[in-house]
């Protein structure tokens, strides 16, 4: 069991911190391939809705868990994806990182010890390091896109782990858990009376059932789903995330949110509300474009000997070039910014965001061939 120490940062957290600026929530330019989510232009109607709300006096504190109409819309959206939730299960957060913090620190303190994959987004390490928590590391399988190794998970639960953190899809590689794998995770959790925190923020960019739908179908409720609320719709820098959680966990997280923030910024909430209208159609169209780009980039990476890690999520491609450090340096020399897998505890791996604006395949060729 690994214990983090308050004030004196663990090596995991030191790594996370040093790489903090390498993992932007959204790209800064066409050559910035570090984004967690693809960036698309913001619909002018969304901005107008947010501005109009402000002009109508919506500049004051709102309810801690979010404005009621946004919580209802979020519940409907997740419901349409197969999740079993009501608006009372929803907490609107100031981006994904606050959702990580609340679930890991508050539910983790209540229902832990935590079980965390040994390859994970650096934001998770940061959230774990805020205050001492009991954390067990569980192995991931490099041959399966860094998904959790189920035998290792069972061992961690046998050793006392009671709250499992899962990225589905995996943030580094875009690997999606199959329905069978998710059901197996739920069955293990059920057997050990453990809970699950599922970061499903990238699921919108993968075909197939959402993790929420699979877990709902399996009847598993000891659960907190987290993610970006309206990914890829131009609101990445507006910072709107969500938690959809078991009713037993919501009051504790709501109480903590009141303590450290009171509420999520109101213009962001009104913008998210407007953006959710028609979001599903927009995501489907973007996903189709991204899938074309991803297929092209994957083939190019294979040809160039960059050893791509195939993932089902169309917004990200992870590669294991023969010399990752040299690849990153050459990318930088051509003006590209990429995510070093070391920040996820996967040295030797490089994560590249796939966007609709430019061809990742072209970038890979340019870097390998050393041409601008």
């Amino acid at each position, binding site marked *: 069991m690994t214990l983090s120490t308050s004030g004196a940062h663990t090596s995991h957290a030191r790594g996370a911190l040093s790489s903090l600026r390498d993992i932007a929530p959204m790209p800064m330019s066409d050559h910035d391939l570090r984004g967690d989510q693809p960036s698309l232009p913001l619909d002018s109607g969304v901005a107008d809705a*947010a501005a109009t709300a*402000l002009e109508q006096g919506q500049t004051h504190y709102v309810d801690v868990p979010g404005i009621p109409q946004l919580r209802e819309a979020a519940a409907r959206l997740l419901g349409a994806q197969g999740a079993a939730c009501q608006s009372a299960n929803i907490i609107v957060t100031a981006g994904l990182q606050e959702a990580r913090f609340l679930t890991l620190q508050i539910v983790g303190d209540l229902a832990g010890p935590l079980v965390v994959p040994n390859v994970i987004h650096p934001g998770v390490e940061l959230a774990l390091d*805020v205050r001492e928590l009991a954390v067990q590391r569980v192995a991931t399988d490099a041959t399966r896109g860094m998904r959790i190794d189920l035998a290792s998970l069972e061992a961690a639960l046998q050793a006392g782990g009671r709250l499992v953190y899962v990225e589905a899809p995996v943030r580094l590689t875009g690997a999606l858990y199959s329905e069978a794998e998710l059901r197996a995770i739920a069955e293990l959790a059920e057997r050990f009376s453990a809970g699950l925190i599922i970061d499903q923020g990238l699921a919108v960019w993968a075909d197939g059932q959402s993790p929420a739908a699979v877990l709902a179908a399996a009847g598993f409720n000891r659960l907190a789903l987290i993610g970006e609320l309206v990914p890829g719709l131009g*609101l990445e820098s507006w*910072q709107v995330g969500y938690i959809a959680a078991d009713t037993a966990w919501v009051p504790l997280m709501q109480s903590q949110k009141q*303590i450290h923030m009171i*509420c999520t*910024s109101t213009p962001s909430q009104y913008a998210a509300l407007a953006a959710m209208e028609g979001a599903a159609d927009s995501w489907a169209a973007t996903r189709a474009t991204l899938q074309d780009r991803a297929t092209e980039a994957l083939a190019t990476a294979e040809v160039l000997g960059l050893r791509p890690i195939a993932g089902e999520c169309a917004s990200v491609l992870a590669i294991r070039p023969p010399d990752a450090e040299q690849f990153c340096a050459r990318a930088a020399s051509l003006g590209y910014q990429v995510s070093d897998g070391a920040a996820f505890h996967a040295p030797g791996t490089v994560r590249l965001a796939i966007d609709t604006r430019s061809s990742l395949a072209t970038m890979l060729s340019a870097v390998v061939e050393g041409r601008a």
Partner: protein
Amino acid sequence: MTATEKKGTDLLYALLAEARTYSDVIVMGRGDPDFDTPAHIVAAARQAMVQHGADYSPPEGILPLRQAIAERVARRNGITVDPEQEVVVTNGGQEALFLMVVASVGAGEAMLVPEPNYNTYNDSLRFARAEKIGVPTRVDQQFRVDPEQMRVAITPKTRAMLLVSPNNPSAGVVGRADQEALVAIAREHNLTIIADDIYDLFVYDGIEHVSSAAIPGAHERTLTLNALSKSFSMTGWRIGWITGPAHLMQRVRKLKAAVSGPNSIVAQHAALAALTSSYAAVEMMRDTYSKRRKIVLDGLAAMGIPAGNPQGGQFVFADISHTGYNSIELAKHMLTNAHVLVYPGAAFATGWENYIRITFLQPEDKLRDALQRMQRAMESLPARSGQGA
């Protein structure tokens, strides 16, 4: 659990929820100014949505805003900071408060807290698994933070000292001589000073506001918070900040990244517009609050409720001990019978059960209506023998 069985922050939120069930309720509890955000800031936000809505922000905030904050604290507070290393933008004063506490004290450590105190300090200390060392202040001393009382309360576990000026809920202000003495004690005992300046622009009757960090020798050990919520009536936007020396801000910056990442880019640009344009709206609001404060004090005096002479803030802290009712009972009575929400002192710290906090963040006509309702409700209270009766 009923509202009145709850404690601290949960009690206040339970009362707020109950207040919403009355269509004619007048809220004089929560610290949310009745003014909307000034129009020029909203207009700037609309423009920023289009021009900067997709811009990247680091967790500590965009540099132009940090520069504007550095300029603001230099001009208004006499605090000199490097915007690159010594400013972090937060989700309101609330996040700033939380981050400062967690950055300064850990499990088993302790912080000196003058009482009564804003309830969230208790909650944040609980999160940090740290201990609160309460140092009571006295109404007959205008809630002065007595440096000698603070000194004798220090234990080997004490790592930090909280100084909120003007204080919430007492409205007491820490004067320059006391600030100097408190800074000297902090230096002597190697304590971090957590300075809460959120009401710095709201002091009355010619009283000077002195920031702890502006006292010579204080900067190296002082984290200072402020926000735009109260001053520019921007509570919903969630914009605040922490300033302090680079060696302490390093930990604050890490915590900010861990707790919530960057603030909303739109809110940051709105804040930039607020800080770099006219303060006329703030001046107007302060003058208005000054008049309202007098209305509330006069109304309470007519009810025989002493409230001292509050020096700052946006509220008064009134002594109800003569009624024979404790603050939760009286707040509940006011809410049920007068449909007026006031906050019980018991929610702020142990030992303040005989006080209520009343904000003056309502228009004058509503304040007068509320005070008349309160007076009728007081008259309908069954007699009990109070301490002062």
